[in-house]
């Protein structure tokens, strides 16, 4: 216990298991008598489910059971911040993106489950598909969720924006757009579940990022007490935010309860692309003012984040993005508004940076454009506006330590061989 570790190289504790192929990831877990699940997914990005016919699929030898919404009336919606995600879409209800689940197929082999999924017939009544958040925000746009397509609006105000622009000699106004991005952890969503009838425990071996949050969400959705849900974290093959959300968990639990046998569900990569969270695409409208000496005076931002069909971490991501609208630069007068908007795209959630990487594209572009307009070396322009100890962020946080941005800029310029000037 007296051994010192600071300043010493320490090997990763599980590295040896990993180089030998011994580390157990969720899909590496096998039980005797285990069944395999496949999910029948939405057939249209925005439609009412009118009919679902599983009769051909259940007749396929090897299919043990097919669960539809009719079988689980007691099960509630789930979701990280807002419980807006259905476990299964029922008759008369809406599918809101291509990843919505319509049925859980449980079979003796993966192959049989895949075949059965393709035998399920679905009839839908199609609605207008909203893939553009700007369309979603229009007055006459159909509602994706009943409370409106703008899920959350956040405001930001610091100083006096009017005064700030009045002080500016140069003002630059632009719109930036970023795209969807998948986190692509190398391991897709996967898990194994068992239900112990005697003790009433559900055990789920699923790679998750927020075990306790997941546990609580699974419990409330199933109507189980929290202590009966055990989420066991096997080795996790990357996550990068994508595994914060529920994926296979509730479907596994339902299948384990229904069959009393161990069950496994592993997404295909395509399924992971279609059904699981993404980085939010942002539309960022920015107006920035600076003096002719090259000091920022005002920064106004409007952020529209496409959170897709469900909230996930959306309200927090877009909100946080807005707080970072000025990047690491001092601005006394800031004003912002951020909209988190529902569309029929794959839902967006957490990904490395949590809204800040999208903003970086906008604020760094603004800085370059301004530097050129002002005729100041962009590196110098950044340096003279960069945060110090004591700076205050747009949301008023005073930075008291670990402010390394100036050193970073200097070092980056040095490594890049930046000779100054305007290029």
């Amino acid at each position: 216990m007296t051994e010192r570790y600071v300043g010493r190289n320490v090997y990763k504790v599980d590295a040896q298991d990993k180089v030998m192929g011994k580390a157990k990831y969720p899909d590496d877990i096998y039980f005797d008598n285990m069944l395999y699940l496949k999910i029948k997914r939405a057939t249209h990005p925005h439609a009412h489910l009118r009919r679902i016919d599983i009769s051909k699929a259940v007749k396929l030898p090897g299919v043990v059971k097919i669960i539809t919404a009719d079988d689980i009336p007691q099960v509630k919606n789930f979701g990280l911040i807002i419980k807006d995600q259905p476990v299964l879409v029922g008759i008369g209800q809406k599918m809101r993106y291509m990843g919505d689940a319509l049925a859980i197929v449980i079979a003796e082999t993966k192959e049989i489950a895949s075949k059965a999924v393709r035998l399920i017939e679905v009839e839908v009544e199609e609605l207008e598909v909203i893939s553009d958040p700007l369309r979603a925000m229009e007055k006459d746009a159909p509602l994706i969720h009943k409370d409106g397509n703008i899920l959350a609006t956040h405001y930001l105000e610091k100083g006096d924006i009017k005064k700030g622009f009045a002080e500016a000699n140069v003002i630059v106004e632009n719109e930036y757009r970023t795209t969807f991005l998948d986190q692509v952890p190398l391991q897709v969503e996967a898990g194994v579940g068992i239900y112990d009838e005697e003790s009433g425990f559900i055990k789920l071996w699923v790679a998750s990022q927020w075990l306790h949050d997941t546990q609580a969400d699974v419990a409330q959705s199933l109507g189980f007490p929290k202590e009966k849900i055990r989420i066991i974290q096997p080795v996790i093959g990357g996550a990068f935010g994508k595994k914060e959300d529920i994926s296979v968990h509730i479907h596994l639990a339902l299948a384990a309860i229904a069959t009393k046998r161990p069950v496994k569900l592993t997404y295909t990569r395509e399924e992971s692309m279609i059904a699981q969270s993404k980085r939010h695409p942002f539309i960022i409208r920015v107006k920035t003012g600076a003096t002719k000496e090259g000091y920022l005076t005002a920064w106004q931002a409007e952020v529209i984040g496409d959170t897709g069909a469900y909230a996930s971490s959306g309200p927090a991501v877009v909100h946080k993005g807005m707080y970072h609208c000025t990047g690491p630069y001092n601005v006394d007068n800031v004003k912002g508004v951020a909209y988190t908007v529902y569309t029929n795209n794959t839902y967006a959630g957490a990904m490395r940076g949590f809204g800040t990487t999208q903003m970086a594209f906008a604020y760094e572009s603004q800085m370059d454009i301004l530097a050129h307009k002002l005729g100041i070396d962009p590196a110098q322009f950044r340096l003279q506006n960069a945060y110090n100890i004591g700076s205050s962020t747009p949301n008023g946080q005073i930075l008291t330590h670990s402010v390394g941005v100036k050193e970073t800029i200097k070092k980056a310029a040095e490594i890049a061989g930046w000779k100054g000037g305007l290029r």
Partner: protein
Amino acid sequence: MEEFPQGLQNSKDFSGGDSKKCQRTVPCQGYFAPQRIEEALEILSRYGKEIKIIAGGTDLLVQYYDRLYEINNWLDLKNIKELKEVKINKNQMIIGAMVTHTQLESSEDIKTYYPVLSQAAADIGSPQIRNRGTIGGNIVNASPAGDLLSPLMAYDAQFKLQSNQREMIVPAEEFFIGPKKTILQPNQLLTRIILPLPEEKTYGCWIKIGKRKALAIATIILALVVKMAEDNKTVKDVRTCLGSVAPTPIEIKEVRKKMAGKNFNQLDFAELGQIVEDKISPIDDIRGTREYRKDVAKEIMINALEEIDSARRERNY
């Protein structure tokens, strides 16, 4: 190799030389791995459309991902040794359909005579893909972005197609009829690729534009082969073949007319690039727009001509 316990070494029990026995026994059902071309053709004529020929499987297993059960019968060519050979026969190079991209890339003969083909093979996918993927699979799959197709056309390749009725030899140009469409019949096997040995002063250049250095399906491909006369200056003949710009690999024949008989030193590279740009009508797709492809086609044509020019100057005859 070590002796086998009860396994089916050489797949004798359900393929092997005795195809009659194979017909009747249960284990042969669904998977055949014959050792000779004749047996393969015989199985093929028996099953026709009901059997899938598999070589390296690098196209098929992607196409049938999660639905392999739809294929009831496989004809695996892996045991047919003669399809894996690269050999010179008089003034021709004969490449077996089962020759892998790795084999093409590492063959000294291919490197010497057909550098464009060699480089194209080296640029395919990744080591894992090159080790399994075959020239025959690349040809029959007939993707507009198939990397070997333009080089093969540029070297005037011919394909030997065999059924148990007859065999035929067709020029590459006639083989491809659309995206993923060829003249190959269900009872036919592509067995060999035949290339004329090039004349001494033949130069080639291979340019593939993709999104990454590895594992990139081409946005545009250019295979340029120029035959020079004895003087190493006068252009005798030229093949300008492009991929990923049309439903099939294509040759820009207008370039032939423009270049043949001319002194290479006096060629206008920009004009030739412009001809290539004008004569292609690519489409927009996820890998690039029509406009982008046209622009790039011109530029890579100019680059290729420059490269050939410097290679020519290096060789002092």
